[in-house]
C-alpha cells in the first residue's frame, strides 16, 4: 500500500468505533448496599421476628400475653409518653432557634449552626454522663442551690422521669432544629413582607404565613425526634430510675435473662409501633408532600 493510500484509509479505520460501553443501570449501582443491608440487617430482623412467633412451634402466645403483661403495658405507655413529651419539648425549644437561624446571614449563621451541631459531635454516652454530673445528689445543680441556701436537703433530680426527658430533649434538639431551619431558609422573604403590606400584624404574619409554610419541616422534625425517642436506650438507662424504664431497656433486660422469644416479641412491637406511626403520618392530608419530595 502506498503512503497516500494508507493516509486515505486511516480515517476509515478510525470510524470503526469500539462497541459502546454497556449501560450499567442504577440497579447495579445500589446493589452493593442492598446486598449488605440484606445480609446484615434484613436477615437478622427477619430472624428476630421469626423468633417472636416460634417458641418452639409457631404460636402467637407471646403477643397475646403482652396484652395482660402489666410491666410491658407500663413500659410501653411510658415510652410513648416520654417520646411525646420530648417531641413537644424539642419543638417548643427548637422552633424559635430554627427561625433565628434562618434569618441569620454570614458569620452569625455559621457560628450558630456550629453551636447547634456541636452536641452531634459528642457521643450520647458522654452527654448522658454530663447530665449525671449536673443532676446528681451532689451534682452541680444541687450544690448551687444549697450554696444559695434555697434548699436544705438535695433534690432528687437524677434517676427520675424528669431527668430522662430533659436529657433526651437536649440530645435530640438538633434533629428538630435542622429540618425546620432548612425549610424556613427556603421561604421566599417576599412572602412575610407581602403579608405585612396587606395588613397582617407581626404575630399574624407568623401564624398565617410563616408557620403554615414551615409545616413540612415541623412534621419532618417531629417524626424524626419521635421515632428516635421510641428507641432511646443509653440515656434512660443512665439518668432514669427503674420506674422510668423505656421499651429498649426492657428488651435489653430480657436479652440479659436469655428470654429471647419475649425480647423478640417486644422488638417486633417497637418496630410495628414505629411503622404504624410512619404510615399514619403518610395518610394525613398535607403530609404527603413531606415524605414524597417533588410535590410542591
Amino acid at each position, binding site marked *: 500500500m502506498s503512503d497516500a493510500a494508507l493516509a486515505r484509509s486511516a480515517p476509515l479505520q478510525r470510524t470503526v468505533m469500539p462497541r459502546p460501553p454497556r449501560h450499567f443501570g442504577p440497579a447495579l449501582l445500589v446493589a452493593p448496599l442492598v446486598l449488605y443491608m440484606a445480609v446484615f440487617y434484613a436477615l437478622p430482623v427477619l430472624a428476630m421476628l421469626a423468633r417472636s412467633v416460634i417458641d418452639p412451634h409457631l404460636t402467637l402466645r407471646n403477643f397475646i400475653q403482652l396484652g395482660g403483661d402489666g410491666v410491658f403495658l407500663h413500659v410501653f405507655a411510658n415510652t410513648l409518653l416520654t417520646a411525646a413529651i420530648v417531641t413537644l419539648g424539642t419543638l417548643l425549644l427548637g422552633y424559635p432557634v430554627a427561625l433565628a437561624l434562618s434569618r441569620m446571614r454570614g458569620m452569625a449563621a455559621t457560628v450558630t449552626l456550629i453551636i447547634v451541631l456541636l452536641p452531634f459531635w459528642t457521643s450520647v454516652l458522654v452527654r448522658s454522663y454530663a447530665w449525671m454530673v449536673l443532676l446528681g445528689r451532689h451534682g452541680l445543680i444541687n450544690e448551687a442551690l444549697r450554696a444559695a441556701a434555697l434548699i436544705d436537703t438535695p433534690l432528687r433530680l437524677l434517676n427520675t422521669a424528669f431527668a430522662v426527658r430533659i436529657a433526651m430533649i437536649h440530645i435530640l434538639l438538633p434533629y428538630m432544629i435542622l429540618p425546620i431551619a432548612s425549610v424556613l431558609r427556603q421561604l*421566599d422573604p*417576599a*412572602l412575610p*413582607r*407581602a*403579608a*405585612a*403590606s*396587606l*395588613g*397582617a*400584624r*407581626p404575630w*399574624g*404574619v407568623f401564624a*398565617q*404565613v410563616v408557620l*403554615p*409554610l414551615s409545616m413540612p419541616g415541623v412534621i419532618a422534625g417531629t417524626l424524626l425526634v419521635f421515632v428516635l425517642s421510641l428507641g432511646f436506650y443509653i440515656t434512660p438507662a443512665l439518668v432514669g430510675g427503674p420506674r422510668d424504664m423505656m421499651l429498649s431497656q426492657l428488651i435489653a433486660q430480657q436479652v440479659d435473662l436469655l428470654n429471647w422469644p419475649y425480647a423478640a416479641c417486644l422488638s417486633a412491637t417497637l418496630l410495628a409501633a414505629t411503622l404504624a406511626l410512619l404510615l399514619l403520618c403518610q395518610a394525613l392530608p398535607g403530609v404527603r408532600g413531606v415524605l414524597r419530595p417533588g410535590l*410542591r
Partner: protein
Amino acid sequence: MDGTPFVARSMRAAPGQGAKVSLVDLEKRFDGVGAVCGISLEIASGEFLTLLGPSGSGKTTTLMMIAGFETPTGGDIAIDGHSVTGTPPHRRNIGMVFQNYALFPHLTVGENIAFPLKQRGVHRGRRKQLVAESLAMMQLPGYEARYPRQLSGGQQQRVALARAIVFQPRLLLMDEPLGALDKQLRESLQLEMRRLHAELGITFVYVTHDQEEALIMSDRIAVVNEGRIAQLGPPEELYDRPQNRFVASFIGESNFLQGTVRSTKGGVVVADCAAATLRGITTQLPPVGSAVTLTTRPERMHFADPRAPSHPMQNRLRATVIEAMFAGERCRYLLRCDDGAMLVLKEPSGAAMRRRAIGETIDVTWPVADTAVL
C-alpha cells in the same frame, strides 16, 4: 374589555383620593455604603410615578422605604403630610405588588385576595363578594378555589394585583411587576395597568429598569442613578430634553458630540465641534468658551442631499458609513465623522429609502430643535 367598566364601583376611590407622597432628603446606608443618597420627591395625588434606573441604583430601596420594609438612615417620608417613618408596614395601608408576585402558595386564589380583608376584620360574606368582584375585574372569574401554582405567570400577576387593591389602599407600590413575563404579555398588562390606574384614581409608584415600559405608562418618571435622582419629568421631556449624559443614554439611544461654546442667543447655543459648527437648545445657557456636549436621537437624523443648501434651523455634518443594519421597521447606520466621533442614525425602512453602502460619504442633517445641550 369591551368598554365595560374595568373596576367595580365598590372599589373605585372617589376623585382626589390618591395619597400624596413626599420624600424629603431620603437616605439609606448599608454598612456605611449609600444605597439612596438624598432623594427628594413630591408625588401628587393620583399620579403614576415611575422610579426608573439600572439595577443597584437605589430605586427598589426607595420603594421598600415607602412600604416600610427598610428604615431610612436619614430624611423623611410623609404620606398626605404625615410622617410615616416610624409606622410599621402593616399600619401604612399601602398596596404592594412584588417582583415575583409573592402569592401565598398554601392559600387558594380566593384566600390570597381575602387575606388583606381578613386582617381588617371584613365580614365573611362581604369578603366573598369582594373577592368575586376583583376576580371578575381581573378577567379570572371563578378562579377562587385554584392554587397559585396552577396559574400562569400572567394570571398570578393579576391575582397579586387584585390582592393589592382589594382593600382600597390610596397608594399602590409596584416593584418590577412585569419583569418575569414575556414581551407580549407585558405589553397587554401595561395597558391594563394604565387603565386600572385611570379608573381607580389612586397614586401608583412603579419601579422598573425598562425605559420603554416607563415611557409608556408613567405620568412622570424619576430617573435614579447611584442613589440620586438624575432627572424628574414627564416622559416626553426626559426623552427630548435630557439634562445629563446618563439620562440621555439610559432612556433610548443618543448621539453625543463635544464642542466649545462660540455664542449663545435666545436659548440657542452655537458650538464649534471638530466636525462642524452645530446649534442646540437649552434652558440654562452655558458661558461662552465652555465645553459642552450636544446630543440628539438617532431617529431625528436624516441623510441630506449634498447639493442642497444648509438651513439655519438644521445642523449638518459630513460622515462615512461604517455599518448598515436592517432591523425590520428601521435601518440602523453607524457613521464616523471626520474627527473620528461615532454617530448612530435610524431611518424608517421602505421602498422610497435608498440603502447606503458601507464606505459611502454622506451628509447628515437634523433639526436644531432636536439637539439638546448638556
